[in-house]
């Protein structure tokens, strides 16, 4: 053990000892009377989907809705003239079956580099793990349809496919749906924005400046 | 009802008309007012300035003086807030005092609480034919949560034209010793409050606390003297409620 290691070890012990001496001794019960289910019991799924759309549009995301059989056509329509689309390794083949441009799949054959993803005009298409209607939030947790975090970060245009059965009412239900909280998680609510100039929200800084959402079902 | 008046030290010395107004309003409504002469200061200035030891004898004096009264009324939001919020904390280390505080606190009311909640009155039969704006002082607004009680009382006054005060919920900048210790910031806050009051076109600004009103009124009178705008008079709302009785 080096001297520096010893100093660090004693820092740990000293801090813990000081906290033990200082902390309150009474135990605390946490009241959880906040909403953990839709405000109106049995709210129609249609209402929830409408709410999600409303919230996303409020953040200036572009939202399209389609039936499951029309997914590929709708996706191609949203992508328009985008020359190249990146998809995660596990994205379903049929998503881009109507898209005429170039498709680059992450990890096929090697992982895409930052430079690959920084090409101008590139769009990325991912799925999500869950979407929260009340806050207009898409949650990505690195599942096969979502891929690595940098895929939905470096390209300037992110298109997210959301299935109706992935939409929940509030944040508590959204977090509870995640299979493994130790996976890298990214919650996305609208395109990149800042409130740093006169405390007004302005869209478009470092993350994707265009966020499209295709709500399926 | 027999009501004990806690006039407060500031009103006793500086603004006795407010105390007289409370007596007049309550007697007009048929109630009996008593003035326990042993009363002094609630200790707010001491406690808020960090002088807990100096505040404690005043807490004791208050609970001894007002023990046994069915209702105690004070025409001061901040003094009632002191009694209600700070007394239990100040007395926490002394079980006997804590018990005495617990016994008396629920019966101490700000004037509008007594009138509206306890006595069930909003129309006290007054008349005051002037344009008035109301500043809800911080203690009244956020500690006592007086809500619209004073406004309901004022709206029922004959001839009174009540106008909204923009930014009403913002502090006037008084803050007890803050006005002296941080005089520059206090003056900056006061200037904005006075401008908002003048912009309403009201002839009077009313409030539930003469300390804040002395600060606001002092600012308004200074500015009027220096030529910025018409004078607006600061007045405790109790004095408006005590205005000439209306005989329908």
């Amino acid at each position: 053990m080096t001297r520096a290691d010893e100093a660090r070890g004693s820092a740990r012990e000293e801090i813990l000892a000081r906290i033990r001496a200082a902390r309150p001794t009474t135990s605390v019960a946490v009241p959880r009377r906040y909403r953990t289910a839709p405000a109106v019991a049995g709210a129609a799924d249609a209402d929830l989907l409408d709410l999600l759309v409303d919230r996303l549009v409020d953040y200036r995301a572009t939202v399209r809705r389609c039936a499951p059989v029309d997914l590929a056509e709708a996706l191609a329509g949203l992508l328009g003239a985008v020359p190249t689309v990146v998809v995660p390794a596990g994205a379903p083949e049929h998503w881009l079956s109507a898209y005429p441009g170039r498709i680059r799949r992450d990890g096929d054959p090697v992982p895409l580099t930052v430079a690959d993803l920084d090409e101008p005009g590139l769009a990325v298409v991912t799925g999500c793990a869950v979407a929260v209607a009340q806050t207009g939030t898409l949650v990505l947790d690195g599942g096969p349809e979502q891929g690595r975090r940098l895929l939905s970060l470096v390209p300037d245009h992110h298109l997210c496919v959301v299935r109706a059965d992935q939409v929940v009412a509030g944040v508590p239900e959204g977090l509870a749906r995640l299979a493994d909280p130790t996976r890298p998680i990214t919650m996305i609510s609208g395109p990149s924005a800042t409130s740093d100039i006169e405390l007004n929200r302005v869209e478009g800084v470092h993350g994707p400046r265009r966020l499209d959402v295709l709500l399926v079902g | 009802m027999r009501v004990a008046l806690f006039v407060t030290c500031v009103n006793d010395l500086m603004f006795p008309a407010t105390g007289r107004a409370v007596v007049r309003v309550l007697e007009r409504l048929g109630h009996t007012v008593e003035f326990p002469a042993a009363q002094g200061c609630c200790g707010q200035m001491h406690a808020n300035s960090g002088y807990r030891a100096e505040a404690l004898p005043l807490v004791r004096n208050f609970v001894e003086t007002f023990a046994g009264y069915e209702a105690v009324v004070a025409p001061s939001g901040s003094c009632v807030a002191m009694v209600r919020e700070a007394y239990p904390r100040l007395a926490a280390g002394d079980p006997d005092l804590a018990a005495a505080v617990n016994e008396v606190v629920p019966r101490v009311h700000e004037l509008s609480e007594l009138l509206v909640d306890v006595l069930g009155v909003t129309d006290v039969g007054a008349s005051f034919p002037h344009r008035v704006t109301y500043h809800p002082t911080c203690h009244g607004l956020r500690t006592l949560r007086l809500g619209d009680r004073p406004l309901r009382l004022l709206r029922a006054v004959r001839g009174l034209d009540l106008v909204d005060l923009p930014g009403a919920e913002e502090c006037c900048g008084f803050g007890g010793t803050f006005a002296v210790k941080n005089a520059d910031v206090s003056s900056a806050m006061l200037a904005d409050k006075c401008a908002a009051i003048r912009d309403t076109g009201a002839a009077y600004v009313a409030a539930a606390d003469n300390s804040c009103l002395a600060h606001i009124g002092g600012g308004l009178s200074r500015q009027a003297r220096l030529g910025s705008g018409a004078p607006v008079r600061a007045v405790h709302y109790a004095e408006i409620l005590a205005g000439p009785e209306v005989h329908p």
Partner: protein
Amino acid sequence: MSGGAPGGTGAQRRRGDRRGHGNIVAPLPFPAAARRELGNPQLRANLRRATHTIRDRRARVVGETPDWAHLRAAGAAIKDDVLARLPELLEQFEAAATAAGATVHWARDAAEARALVTDLVRGTGSAEVVKVKSMATQEIGLNEALAEAGITVVETDLAELIVQLADDTPSHILVPAIHYNRRQIREIFADRMPGVDLDALTDEPAALAEAARRYLRDRFLNARVAISGANFAVAETGTLVVVESEGNGRMCLTLPETLISVVGVEKLLPTFRDLEVFLQLLPRSATGERMNPYTSMWTGVTPGDGPRALHVVLLDNGRTDTLADPVGRQALRCIRCSACLNVCPVYERVGGHAYGSVYPGPIGAILSPQLTGLDAGANRSLPYASTLCGACFDVCPVRIDIPQVLVHLRQRDVDARRGQPSPERMAMRALSWVMRDRRRYAAALRAARRGAAPLRLLTAGGEVRRLPWPLSAWTSSRDAPLPAARTFRDWWAERTAHGGREDGRDQG
């Protein structure tokens, strides 16, 4: 701000001194610093506009949340629970994060944390780091220490970048450049941002954001080391959470090979589920949004996704001292949302620099002096920088009773100085002695009234235009009322002597 210089290694530090230090010590008493700031009308106009904008936005999104009171109660209780179980939770976090591939370090104070992080950056061989906005690193003066070690620090949050380019200090917890308006920000970028495209640079916020994007893009894509703080650290899973807007956080947390996160020990949450409360409270309180654009959560390292090395530095720096105060410890619930700054009438007039600490406003007035002790610099003046108006408590998402703690710290200050002579204490003592006894009180009232009588003859409207010190501070901007000709109790005594009840329409 003082204390920015890096300290020695842990072994060289003074033993036994565990108070917080760094950029949390006010160099000037608050009244003097406030006077300096009040002299800047542009600053006041900027602050007024920005704070009123954010107040309205917050009120709107809180108003549409019917269970807000329940969320606040839960948030406060979860944080209190954390403080009660802090040693166990820290050990649990350390074990979970370590199992997931992180290396956990402990720092007793700012100097130790600065030395630790500097060593870690040196160990990577990189001469440049990108930073996510972090209060903990501001607090410990990390940028100054890294600069002294020859390491270039690039702040990537837009407001931090503005402050860094302007060679200024932050004036707000959430929006460190709140004191600048768009025109001033354009000037800073035009003068100081290397390679800026002057033709495209207008004072439109979108153009300013675009300039920051272009300036930082290559730095993100080539960065090898990033430094962050964390909004939350989950004990159960070892997860860290950063809540942000621009995507600069995601860039820093995802692209570099090495990530160093400096986290105050009070940032813990017991379980992952607890985030469901704070991810509702924080964005609504901070930027007035239903949800901030991006929230990142990471647990140790994940092969193929994100950094290959993660270091977590757990920081005390006065937090254990704060924890020891039964009233004051509620300040450790703070989630750094800034709602209390945005509603504070004092902050709105003077801005953050008047507080001399990276933690300004109401929360700073109770946090800075507790972290450092009241006798550090001019920090004892901070608890008096409030009218106790209570607006801060109303909006606090974790129900910190800031006015109560302010009064408590004033008590601690007064009690700590009981031995020293003070005119204020003599006056307070005398007033207390007089006012607790009816005879003494009545006599004093008579004396005050009599003393005022000649003054009354001299003043036309019964108002005084100038009082002697210390009350001259009052009459500098307002007239003062005179004691009435007859006190209430004299009126009452006469009335009683004349048979009691009468119409009360007499003159004072």
